[in-house]
């Protein structure tokens, strides 16, 4: 294979690659090798991956080729490479959640989502970088160093799933998996010009997802286009009896919706609260332009007010740390991971404390302390209890809005990718990156970010939100909008990214 055709393989969509493999125009091993080669050549600059599984990826690809040779039918994404956020357990493959406390840990089991990827013959290239335990909006909280945005290597790729979004934008993989607790799929997608979906809470199994905040976490698909995301969504979604919060209902018809590319008569609400001060003018302009396109496509666009959304961020920063403080208690050096101070002179309690002191980074410690305080006797009602009430109000705002409209739209994040280091010492400024994405996590709704334009040469994302279990609606709107924007531009937005 020539260099130019290898280069071609890494720029193709997942749909194209699957078709080529099925038709015999490329082998799965060739496809995997092309992506691995690019990672080896370029990821030194980007640092999207914490672990690249050359051997496992090539073995999985070879198995796909063997199936094809044997005449077996292949799944819709068989042989397509994927970058997996390092918060899902992978049997025998290092899994760190971006934390020193799990350095060197090789889980004994695959996450449910990983099982589904393998069953679909998707080729897992490796584990991608993220903020420690998915806490952050820039990947700067990773214990293993930050990831760089392929659009501008001095800028953040978003977070916590910056490794996955950067892997897509840098053409290391056509598909990726993220997790979204307060925007960790959507905000990285927005700032890297890629597509990221947070499915309805309970739509994708959390079994084997290393928890950040249990009631908010949701795994979801990331891709360079809407249809690829829908195909991956279909693979990973569905009921799992090992996750009690998994929804026992049919997966919404997301692929059909993504292919429909027509939104005539759909009612679209623009969230009034997500504009104004703190929003970059270029971001608002791109979003406004995209909304105009939706109108031109025949949608009925109205402004909708969701007053409680203003309280989403403070409520989130009580609920999330509370759950974090409990979920992360298991990292105690007793059964797995880092162990510090086990030299015969320290008690078990001291070893626990020393290990946690050495193994957790500052943001994780900050949230554990916040959560421990919020749950303390005497403070519970004032903090956690009040926050849960806000959560109910937000769900009511969504319900009222969805009485009027089919989907809601807003900017995904108030700004484009900010420079690495700019907000690293200012947690509150960092938290504002998730201002628009958090309400969907608190209420459990489906939501997506898709690229709609550039502001000063950096990508801008539009967020589309739908009711619980109406994930198909976001794909319908996004599919039509993406097509219209690509047609007007003459190419996909990501084509404008610098060549690495």
């Amino acid at each position: 294979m020539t260099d130019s055709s290898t280069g071609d393989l890494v720029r193709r969509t997942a749909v194209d690659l699957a078709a080529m493999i099925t038709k015999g125009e490329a082998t799965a091993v060739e496809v995997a090798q092309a992506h691995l080669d690019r990672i080896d050549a370029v990821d030194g600059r980007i640092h999207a991956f914490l672990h690249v599984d050359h051997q496992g990826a090539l073995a999985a690809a070879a198995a796909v080729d063997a199936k094809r040779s044997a005449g077996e039918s292949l799944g819709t994404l068989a042989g397509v490479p994927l970058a997996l956020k390092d918060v899902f357990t992978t049997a025998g493959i290092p899994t760190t959640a971006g934390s020193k406390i799990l350095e060197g840990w090789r889980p004994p089991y695959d996450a449910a989502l990983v099982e589904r990827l393998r069953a679909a013959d998707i080729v897992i290239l490796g584990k991608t970088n993220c903020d420690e335990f998915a806490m952050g909006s820039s990947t700067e909280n990773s214990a293993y160093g930050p990831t760089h945005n392929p659009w501008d290597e001095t800028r953040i790729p978003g977070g916590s799933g910056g490794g996955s979004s950067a892997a897509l934008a840098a053409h290391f993989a056509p598909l990726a998996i993220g997790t979204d607790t307060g925007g960790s799929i959507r905000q990285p997608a927005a700032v890297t010009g890629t597509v990221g979906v947070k499915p309805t809470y309970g739509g994708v199994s959390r079994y084997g997802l290393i928890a950040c905040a249990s009631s908010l976490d949701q795994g979801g698909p990331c891709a360079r286009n809407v249809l690829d995301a829908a195909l991956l969504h279909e693979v990973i979604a569905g009921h799992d009896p090992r996750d009690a919060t998994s929804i026992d209902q049919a997966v919404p018809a997301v692929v059909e919706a993504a292919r429909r590319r027509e939104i005539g008569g759909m009612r679209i609400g623009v969230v009034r609260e997500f504009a104004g001060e703190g929003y970059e003018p270029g971001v608002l302009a791109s979003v406004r332009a995209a909304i105009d396109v939706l109108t031109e496509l025949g949608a009925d666009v109205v402004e909708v007010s969701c007053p409680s959304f203003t309280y989403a961020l403070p409520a989130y920063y009580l609920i999330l740390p509370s759950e974090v403080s409990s979920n992360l208690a298991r990292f105690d050096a007793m059964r797995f991971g880092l162990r510090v101070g086990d030299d015969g002179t320290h008690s078990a309690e001291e070893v626990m404390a020393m290990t946690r002191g050495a193994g957790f980074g500052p943001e994780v410690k900050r949230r554990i302390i916040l959560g421990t305080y919020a749950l303390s006797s005497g403070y519970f009602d004032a903090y956690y209890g009040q926050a849960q009430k806000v959560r109910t109000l937000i769900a009511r705002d969504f319900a009222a809005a969805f009485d009027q409209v089919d989907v809601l739209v807003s900017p995904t994040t108030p700004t484009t990718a900010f420079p690495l280091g700019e907000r690293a010492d200012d947690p509150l400024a960092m938290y504002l990156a998730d201002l628009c994405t958090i309400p969907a996590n608190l209420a459990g709704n489906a939501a997506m970010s898709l690229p709609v334009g550039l502001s000063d040469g950096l990508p801008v994302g539009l967020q589309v939100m739908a009711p619980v279990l109406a994930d198909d609606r976001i794909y319908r709107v996004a599919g039509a909008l993406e097509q219209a924007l690509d047609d007007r531009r003459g190419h996909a937005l990501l084509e404008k990214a610098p060549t690495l």
Partner: protein
Amino acid sequence: MSPSTPDLVPYDEALSRYEPVLGLEVHVELSTASKMFCGCPTGFGAEPNTQVCPVCLGLPGALPVMNAEALDAVIRIGLALGCDIAPWCRFARKNYFYPDMPKNFQISQYDEPIAYGGSLDVMIDTDDGPQTFTVGIERAHMEEDTGKSLHVGGATGRIHGAQHSLVDYNRAGIPLIEIVTKPVPGLGKYVPELARAYVGELRDILRSLDVSDVRMEQGSLRCDVNVSIAPVGAAEWGKRTETKNVNSLRSVERAVRYEIGRQAAVLDAGGTVKQETRHWQEGSGTTAPGRSKEEAEDYRYFPEPDLVPIAPTPERVEELRGTLPELPRALRVRLLGEWQLSPLDMQALINAGAVDLVVATVAAGAPPADARKWWLGELARAANETGTELSALPVTPAQVARVVELVADGALNDKLARQVLEGVLAGEGEPDEIVAARGLAVVSDEGALGKAVDAAIAGNPDVAGKIRDGKIAAAGALVGAVMKATRGQADAARVRDLLLERLGPPE
């Protein structure tokens, strides 16, 4: 005892000045096939850390899923205790760090228990005869057990001072039901007996529901004893202590009695009782303080976000109510009639923990009177001597029934039957095997027995003469002589018949 331990005030004296209040928390391990939140088996005694998986080890990413069988069990327990069943409730996380708790939080229930507001009637002996007391049940809720720590190299067997510790996670995640009483005031000196009787009654109920092995010595039923005392007539109750590690019914009673005496001594000396956790020391028969905590533990309870709320439908609750067996108390009322027992007889059976055993022995074919006689007599004595519960003796109701049958058939007399039971308890096998092996059959050879009878008549002409004159009561002496000559291996009734045949019984 450490030098700082105050002396005990004698029990009766303590009760003359102080009024105790009792509270009991019982933890029951369910005998479900799998654990509370994963599919691991629950069998007792397996090799350490062989019944574990990512979920019960608390590995990153693992999630709990509720065991539906355990929910059925707790609902049935709640119904049997007269509780209301919550139409909607949740699990909660109880957060604290300890090496044998894999997640460093326990999934439990906090302010929304599945069952609440019941009661349990308990009968105890009083100076006025057997009386029934009603113990209020505050709640019954579901939770998961912790692993088990073995602390090596310390003096106390506890974690502080140990050289190292071994942890077995087989027990981690086994379904536990915690049953909590309301405070029980106003019982005066009967508090220790009531505590014991309550746990015994609860155990019988749980056994009849077939939800747990209820073996205190294996830890499948564990009791925490809460005791406080206050001067008689005081407006407020005293500070309570919670005594753990109470592993038998007898210890429940002793621990309560000890705490009353100990707390009385503290108050008498002008001190205050510390609200604390204490540990029962079986060997010394005392309680010792746990690690002193500078401040109260804050468990930071919050609703468990990995599990969905529990909402049993009224139909399901009624369906489960339909599966309740005849409960021990109802059974006893029925038996009083069927077996023609006095309340005192019944109380003796209850006190000995023999009701179920006698019922099973009767079911195996023995007449109730005989079944009672052996369990309350010979076997109760054996249990007493070895310091075990009657139900823990290595003898089955079926074996007792067989011994009763052998006596009824005339193959054994009472003396021989006792030897057979001794053999069963010693592990020598089934009753028939022991009869054969020990050569314990009654002398039933009519020839041999006849010769012994003739010899007795010949050797006691005076007695024989009295019998011939109609003084039948005198026959006992000759029966005794024959029994002595046959070393007890004769059927006394048959001997009597043979004597009377020969000495011309009156019509």
